């Protein structure tokens, strides 16, 4: 029996024996070996059998389209399962995307998707620009481009008013061969310039509408080669315009959006050193012998370091987990002329001969994040497999054999994709450095109170504005530990909550003598009758244990009392991770009123204030109505 068949029967055996976790690891191994249309159905059907046994994240996706996408769906679902996402996919009717968006009760809205992909090809929406371009006068061509833009603007706005789902919109591909050949770029009325113009406007429309994200379909096609991408015969017979060996690439591009949208976010990249950040083994080859620099083969490792640096500028923390003598490795990192990264680029460093699993646990604890926020990069497949089995929550980045391909493999990893970017992301590495200073300072004080006074914390209540919307949504998506209700909200949902008159969205900005934490807490409230309900109350892990939560709660109480409300109440829903928030309401004088299967309801009588800690200087906005 071939290895591929053996793996399949091993998977079926493990499933029938009820060994869900081991079966899942083998399913993912099969998919890594055979990422192809042929094996997708097997992977999906077997992963579906593990649904009740494994903590997959359910996610609902609708695909509205002008071409056949059905054969891509199993490939997408197989890939998603291997990122722990159980996708339910609705494919809209062929070329019915406009009705499906415009009709309020359409099957798409009834499906209640988490995200919608709008995949329309240039040829299908603007046939005149695509194939009849030679017959168009320049006025008509311009009119046709404007029609496409205004249609999309109308559809996207209609969608936004009917659904809170994220919307992923394909932009438009350029023709393989412009109608006028070389002349196209030499004259005023250019076919490719019109497609560019439409794409530029699509970018504007997506930026103007919250939760609308542009997928650069034209760049995707050109990345994989325009001539190899298409398959005219499949288009003419099955309305499938994409060649069999390119289907995976579209699925992967979709997945780059779905992974972060579904909340699967890698926040820390833990890297190996030898043969990963440089070629060779520092302990054997020495600083003069390792390969790192602008020439081959050192250039491959330098390129990988460049990706790491780019990731850290995007807010991904870097950490090291390496089996080495610490002195030699640190000397290499500090002194080698080819190193782009230096020790200060890393938020945590473990260079020792300990088991990597233990090191990863320690890194997670030190950085105060869950193991499911860690991505692990190591050239050694044995170490990768060891971590994969022992810590199934950790993202494993599979490196190809050839170091020349390392940088691209890392750039393609979807766990680092983000659809919003905040100032806080950019400053994260400095923030963690400040955090280390705080921890060191804390050890010099006898009491917590003394330390809190020394910190000179300043907190500011910040209202919802377009500038804070992205960060607030991001905090609801990412915060797991100090989070009372763990409700996740998209930017679009936050905007809608903010627009309703009974609801309020507050955030808190915190700084102290060591630095700025940025927006580090969120509270969402709804007032009804004489009760203020706390829908969401969360604090970034960076400021847990500094009594900032008390300051925020005291503001909520004071604000509610000033509006004449009598009581404040909030649910606590326990999760695997939010133990730090469990006693929050009790400690602040709330009484349990109710419990159900999901959690407990706590109530506070607003007759008495909740005092703000004396060591926090709390600034309130003069006007918080928005």
């Amino acid at each position: 029996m071939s290895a591929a068949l053996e793996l399949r029967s091993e998977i079926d055996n493990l499933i029938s024996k009820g060994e869900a976790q081991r079966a899942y690891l083998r399913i993912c191994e099969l998919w890594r070996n055979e990422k192809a249309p042929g094996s997708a159905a097997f992977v999906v059907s077997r992963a579906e059998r593990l649904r009740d046994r494994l903590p997959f994240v359910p996610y609902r996706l609708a695909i509205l389209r002008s071409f056949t996408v059905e054969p891509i769906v199993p490939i997408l679902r197989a890939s998603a399962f291997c990122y722990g996402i159980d996708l339910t996919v609705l494919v809209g009717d062929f070329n019915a995307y406009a009705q499906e968006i415009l009709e309020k009760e359409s099957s798409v809205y009834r499906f209640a998707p988490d995200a919608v992909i709008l995949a329309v090809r240039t040829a299908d929406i603007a046939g005149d620009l695509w194939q009849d371009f030679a017959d168009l006068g320049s006025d008509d061509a311009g009119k046709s481009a404007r029609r496409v833009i205004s249609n999309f603007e109308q559809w996207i706005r209609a969608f936004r008013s009917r659904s809170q789902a994220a919307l992923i919109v394909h932009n438009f591909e350029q023709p393989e061969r412009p109608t006028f050949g070389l002349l196209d770029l030499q004259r005023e009325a250019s076919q490719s310039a019109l497609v560019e113009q439409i794409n530029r406007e699509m970018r504007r429309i997506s930026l103007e509408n919250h939760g609308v994200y542009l997928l650069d379909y034209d760049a995707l096609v050109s990345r994989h080669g325009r001539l190899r991408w298409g398959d005219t015969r499949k288009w003419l017979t099955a309305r499938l315009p994409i060649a069999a060996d390119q289907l995976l690439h579209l699925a992967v591009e979709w997945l780059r959006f779905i992974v972060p949208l579904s909340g699967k976010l890698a926040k820390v990249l833990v890297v190996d050193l030898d043969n990963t950040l440089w070629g060779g083994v520092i302990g054997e080859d020495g600083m003069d012998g390792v390969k790192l620099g602008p020439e081959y083969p050192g250039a491959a490792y330098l390129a990988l370091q460049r990706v790491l640096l780019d990731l850290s500028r995007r807010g991904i923390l870097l950490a090291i987990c390496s089996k080495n003598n610490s002195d030699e490795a640190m000397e290499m990192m500090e002194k080698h002329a080819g190193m782009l990264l230096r020790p200060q680029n890393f938020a945590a460093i473990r260079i020792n001969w300990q088991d990597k699993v233990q090191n990863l646990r320690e890194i997670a604890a030190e950085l105060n994040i869950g193991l499911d926020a860690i991505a692990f990069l190591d050239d050694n497949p044995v170490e990768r497999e060891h971590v994969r089995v022992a810590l199934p929550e950790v993202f494993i980045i599979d490196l190809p054999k050839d170091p020349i391909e390392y940088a691209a493999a890392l750039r393609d990893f979807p766990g680092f994709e983000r659809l919003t970017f905040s100032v806080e992301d950019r400053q994260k590495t400095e923030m963690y450095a400040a955090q280390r200073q705080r921890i060191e300072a804390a050890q010099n004080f006898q009491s917590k109170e003394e330390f809190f006074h020394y910190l000179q914390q300043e907190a500011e209540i910040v209202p919802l504005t377009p500038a804070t919307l992205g960060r607030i949504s991001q905090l609801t998506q990412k915060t797991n530990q100090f989070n009372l209700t763990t409700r996740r909200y998209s930017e679009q949902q936050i905007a809608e909550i903010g627009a309703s008159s009974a609801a309020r969205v507050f955030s808190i900005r915190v700084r102290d003598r060591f630095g700025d934490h940025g927006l580090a807490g969120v509270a969402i409230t709804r007032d009804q009758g004489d009760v203020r309900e706390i829908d969401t109350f969360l604090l970034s892990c960076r400021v847990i244990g500094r009594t900032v939560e008390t300051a925020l709660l005291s503001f909520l109480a004071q604000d509610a009392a000033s509006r004449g409300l009598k009581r404040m109440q909030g649910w606590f829903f326990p999760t695997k991770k939010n133990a730090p928030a469990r006693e929050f309401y009790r400690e602040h004088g709330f009484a349990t009123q109710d419990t159900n299967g999901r959690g407990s309801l706590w109530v506070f009588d607003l007759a008495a204030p909740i005092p703000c800690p004396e060591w926090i200087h709390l600034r309130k906005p003069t006007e918080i109505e928005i």
Partner: protein
Amino acid sequence: MTAAIFEQVRGMASDLFGVPLDQISPASSPANIETWDSTAHLNLVLALEERYGFQISPEEMEKMQSIADVTTLVESKLRSTAGQQR
């Protein structure tokens, strides 16, 4: 019909149609495999193209009426691609 290609085609058909391997024979066809519908047929064509790196024409697609037909087609296409390379 070589055993090697038949086994490969059979494996793919088993995955794509969701039918156990031992229930797929050269005589298996859309008539006796319920899940072998037009969507599954397109998926089979795409899986073969991706795996072997050749293109299947609409005419060839219609001739694929049993696992034996599919195997014969794959063999003849692999022979002609090999011929071109020489």
